[in-house]
């Protein structure tokens, strides 16, 4: 049994960590957080040059042709560094959707551009409140044009193209939903930046008015494709979350060792030690669930839907837990803008929602386990 990453994959992790330590220090995250830039363009280019953006894209489409395990490794490091770039929207969502359902022409058009850092993509799924569900998709598609409003759309204001979930039927079934590819530069879509709890990453409202778009995948297959895309993205995002959780835990641990109060390091008080021990427990459980998700994703196993939901729930909880208690360990200083703790807290709570909330995935996990047991 080797339920672990390979030596090559661990080497890739070390490379990515070194690269990000240099190119993505906290002050780079703050440039985007403070609204000076919509995303870190230099970092995005650098990631493309390192081959990280196309690590799971086949060589024939301009990628490195490695695989999803390598992408999990990159995702974890990006999460540790809070990289302020549109990786999740472009790579976990848009590229995965095209890989799963795109025509050869669509793959040739967008995948090499993604790998080269020349195209930013996103998934336009949500329409206000609510979790992923066919009923919540109201945007209409008819005659190859889209009409409706999507929000929040991650990185919607900087995207070059969007995978759009649209309603093409009214039977009340999943087959009413189809996917489309919309070129944001071709007109018919207006983007408005929205304020959000994590300004180091962008959220937007996209208004489609007679926007020309081409189908992605077969008509009526939209929900089935989306479900797979969300499972893939759940595993990848979970690695980002575990990376963030680990870093928040380290920050708390380091501060507890350095900070003296009542004549001793605060890390010698059991109240603080035990809080940090519980953070370690959450992060460890999440990492192990993520490894199972990575295995299922990389082998396209039948267990993927269940494994993805478990990884998603566990990693969401761990990142939220570690980020909030990191602030607690830091005390008052943790609540300042100057300290980096709030950036992890913001990211933890934003990533908890992007692919559907915790309660959505809890429900999904048990439904999937039940289905498996019944089978």
């Amino acid at each position: 049994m080797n339920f672990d990453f390979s030596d090559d994959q661990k080497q890739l992790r070390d490379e990515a960590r070194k690269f990000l330590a240099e190119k993505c220090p906290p002050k780079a995250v703050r440039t985007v957080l403070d609204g000076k830039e919509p995303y870190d363009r230099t970092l995005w280019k650098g990631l493309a040059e390192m081959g990280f953006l196309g690590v799971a894209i086949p060589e024939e489409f301009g990628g490195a042709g490695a695989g999803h395990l390598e992408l999990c490794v990159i995702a974890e490091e990006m999460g540790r560094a809070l990289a302020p770039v549109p990786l999740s929207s472009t790579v976990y969502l848009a590229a995965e959707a095209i890989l799963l359902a795109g025509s050869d022409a669509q793959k040739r058009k967008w995948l090499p551009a993604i790998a080269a850092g020349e195209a930013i993509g996103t998934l336009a799924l949500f329409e206000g409140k609510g979790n992923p569900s066919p009923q919540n998709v109201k945007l209409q598609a008819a005659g190859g044009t889209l009409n409706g409003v999507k929000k929040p759309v991650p990185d919607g204001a900087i995207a070059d193209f969007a995978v759009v979930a649209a309603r093409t039927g009214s039977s009340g079934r999943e087959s009413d939903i189809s996917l489309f590819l919309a070129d944001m530069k071709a007109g018919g879509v207006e983007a408005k930046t929205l304020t959000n709890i994590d300004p180091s990453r962008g959220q937007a409202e996209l208004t489609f008015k007679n926007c020309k778009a081409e189908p992605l995948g077969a008509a009526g297959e939209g929900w089935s494709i989306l479900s797979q895309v969300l499972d893939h993205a759940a595993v990848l995002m979970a690695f980002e979350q575990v990376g963030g959780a680990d870093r928040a835990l380290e920050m708390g641990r380091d501060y507890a060792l350095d900070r003296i109060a009542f004549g001793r390091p605060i890390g010698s008080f059991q109240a603080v030690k035990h809080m940090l021990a519980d953070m370690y427990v959450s992060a460890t459980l999440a990492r192990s669930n993520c490894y199972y998700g990575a295995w299922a994703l990389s082998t396209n196993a039948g267990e993927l839907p269940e494994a993805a939901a478990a990884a998603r729930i566990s990693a969401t909880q761990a990142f939220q837990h570690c980020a909030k208690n990191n602030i607690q360990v830091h005390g008052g200083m943790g609540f300042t803008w100057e300290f980096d703790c709030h950036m992890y807290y913001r990211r933890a709570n934003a990533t908890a929602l992007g692919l559907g909330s915790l309660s959505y995935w809890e429900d999904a996990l048990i439904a999937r386990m039940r289905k498996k047991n019944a089978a």
Partner: protein
Amino acid sequence: MNFDDTPQEAAFRAEAKAWIAANAPKQYEEELRKSSLGRTVLKGANILEVAKAWQKKKADAGWACLHWPKEYGGRGSSPIERVIWQQEEGPFGKLSGMFIIGHGMCGPTMMAFAGEEQKRQYLPPLASGEKIWCQLFSEPAGGSDVAGLRTRAEKNGGDWIINGQKIWTSGAHYSDYGILLTRTDPNVPKHKGLTMFFLDMKSKGVEVRPIKQASGQSDFNEVYFTDVKIPDSQRLGEVNDGWNVSLTTLMNERSAIGAGVSTGFPELFEFCSNLMLEDGPAIDDPGVRSKLANWAVKASGLKYTSMRAISALSRGERPGPENSIGKLVAGSMVQDVAAYALDLQGAAGVLSGPEDAEIAGKFQAMLLRAPGTRVEGGTDEIMRNIIAERVLGLPGDIRVDKDVPFNKIPTKGRS
């Protein structure tokens, strides 16, 4: 990343599987499979006898204490082979409960500190289950703070005379031998005046009294020592070096990787799948689902944490400290799971008789046994200290009694 055996591992697994299929006491398989925390019983059979017979059969065929050297009754197997054996032994592994302390703690301590002749005399019957061993460390005044123990050992010619009391001794009532930690010098700080021995539990002056637990069962004992004589040849390690000897024992406590800790989750999932509430099956209720999902990811997180440790073993590495979270997570989880299962039963959840209670009172038994799991073998708080200090590198607790002679340490709080 894969779950596959190496060719050698696969060959070992096939051999183990075949032997177990041909030799295991199959008539008890179903009962053992269904048993859960607080309830391992075999109808119409004495579990001690069944367990001893299975252990002897394993030993005769070379399947006992796999990781021990052959000359001491083991098989000389690698750590990963031991894990594969446990996986294949499955529910029959529950019959090993009464040997865990002897095989996991007393045996390794004897191997490290006893003389060669003693090892050859005592270890093979320990491996084969013909002799059962217990560990006599905890005392009324020394639980988590085990170095605070007060049982005295005084030198008298070539012997030591023991007086004092031990508590929480698992299986003392059916044990043949024990390892015993005593105080030999009360005039030095507490860790520096301890000495370890092994002794025959039938020695004159040893009295075993079962403790009736909060759950109503009796798994543990008090053991009283009144002028018990132990020859100096049964001393393990140097005089006053008992603390270091006990660390060897306690380090081995963590070695049971892959043995699995009971979380109660599979039982709860099955229960919720079958339980009908007013609006349909419990498992379709959003509140129930949310609770189940939170426990599901803890149970799977533990399972795959253990897989990561097994992978390290398979590569010939020592597993990392992440495995130390198992008992901490499972202990409080099984308690919460049991309480929730009773909640789902409504007012009838109070009933615990096998005929009246849901699934024969399994969750009621689990609830009543669960508090012990958070205390035995290191309390939740000690486990968190271990993680904080050994994994995260945080400072040790400030110990006000560290440099104080043992006999000057206060013995009472409020006076």
